[in-house]
């Protein structure tokens, strides 16, 4: 059992490193190299409907809010 857990741990670390290494490798990106960054999934603002729904729900049910923009929450949600 311990060997299995150790194996899973090692695989997780290797997978994590294989994702993190290319994620943080800095690169000088030319304008013609921004095709990937222009994809919808790469938007730092996220999907507008998803963002609105999440903000609305969590604002209504939790004690803290904000961080993504300015202007308040806009409801007295119960």
């Amino acid at each position: 059992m311990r060997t299995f857990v150790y194996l899973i741990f090692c695989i997780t670390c290797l997978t994590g490193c294989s994702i993190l290494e290319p994620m943080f490798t800095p690169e000088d990106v030319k304008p013609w190299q921004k095709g990937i960054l222009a994809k919808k999934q790469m938007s730092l603002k996220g999907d507008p409907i998803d963002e609105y729904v999440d903000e609305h729900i969590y604002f209504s049910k939790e004690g803290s809010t904000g961080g993504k923009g300015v202007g308040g929450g806009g409801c007295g949600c119960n």
Partner: protein
Amino acid sequence: MAVTKTLKQQLTLAAGALLGHQAADAAESTDASLYNSWTVDVGYLYYSEPDKITVDTYMAMISGNLSDKDTVSLGLVFDTLTGSTPTGALPDSSVAVTGVSGGGAGTVGGGGATSSFDDTRLAVDASWGHEWQRLVRSDVSAYVSVEGDYTAIGGGLGIEKDTEDRAYTFTAAIGGSVDKVSQSNEQTPAPLSELSDAIYYGKGDKNTYDVLFGLSKIINRRTAAMVNITHSRSLGYHTDPYKVISVADADDAEFTTLFEKRPDERERYVLYSKIVHEIPGGDDHLDFSYRYHTDSWDVNSHTVEMGYSFDVRIRHLFKPFGRIYYQQAANFYQRTIVSDDGVLDNLPEYASSDPRLADMLSVTAGLKYQYKTSATGSIDFRLAYIHRQYGSAVVGDDGTLFLTVDLGKGFD
């Protein structure tokens, strides 16, 4: 010969004129498509807490380019809310909170722990973005939200500046809102007064001011990241006019209930960061965000969100996502006001038993599925479950299910 040359010249001129005209048409057509790129989203949200609230939300958003330098977006939201909401009283309380929108003293689940209500909300928002110079943009936004017991009007102004190589974008924004708060009868109860006293005032006002500084960075051709720091200050009526708190002994034997009272000022600081990344060798995307929130009420919280999207056979996109949120209770939060004899001669300055201000751990797990109906159109389904666990509250742990359906279409 001279005639032939003239004819050739005329044919050349005619061909040139024709080609030139076609080129001009093509350029005009390209410009028109560039300046008339619009996106329309129509969405529906179903939100349900068993034995409590049910919300149906209808959303419509449209955004597009007015010119090569101007973008606009408009949003319209209509909510209907029905069910019951926790009052803040102990589960066996006999309190009957009245004045709730369209509802009243009705209870669900027994006692005065909840009161029924029925409300609708209409919200409209608009924004205008403009590019002033090659690397400088602004964004102006405004919104109005109206419901039976709450009106909010707000807006913001943001400036974005790119560096010459567009690797960094700096953002500065200010915002504000004016809220009017009351029970549905346009009254607010006297804070920390007994319900039986029936002391009421007029509507409460709350003004909020926000300042945000942000930085986004293109790390490499597959990764972008951002960080925002926000300061927010609100002044005025922060109390929830429907919430009460039980005065009870150590064994939860209730003597009476009082309307809650919160401070009339709140100052927040929020740090928000996010990173998005495309996994090399495929079309999988990863996003991760972290938010730290702290405020003058000591509601300190940590929020981690993550999502991983992948395509299946081009038209199908799946995105599992998750969120973990932990908050520390507000410094005036109390489950009850403990008293040995029920005598109200030593009340705290502020007190609230609203579970939203309690110690809380909230975990969300969900899945988004997107079917691409065309190159610019899609239908999205997003289903998630939220589990909330409270440290010490008059309500037990609860769960929420929500589903969104979104029809999106781009027009060029």
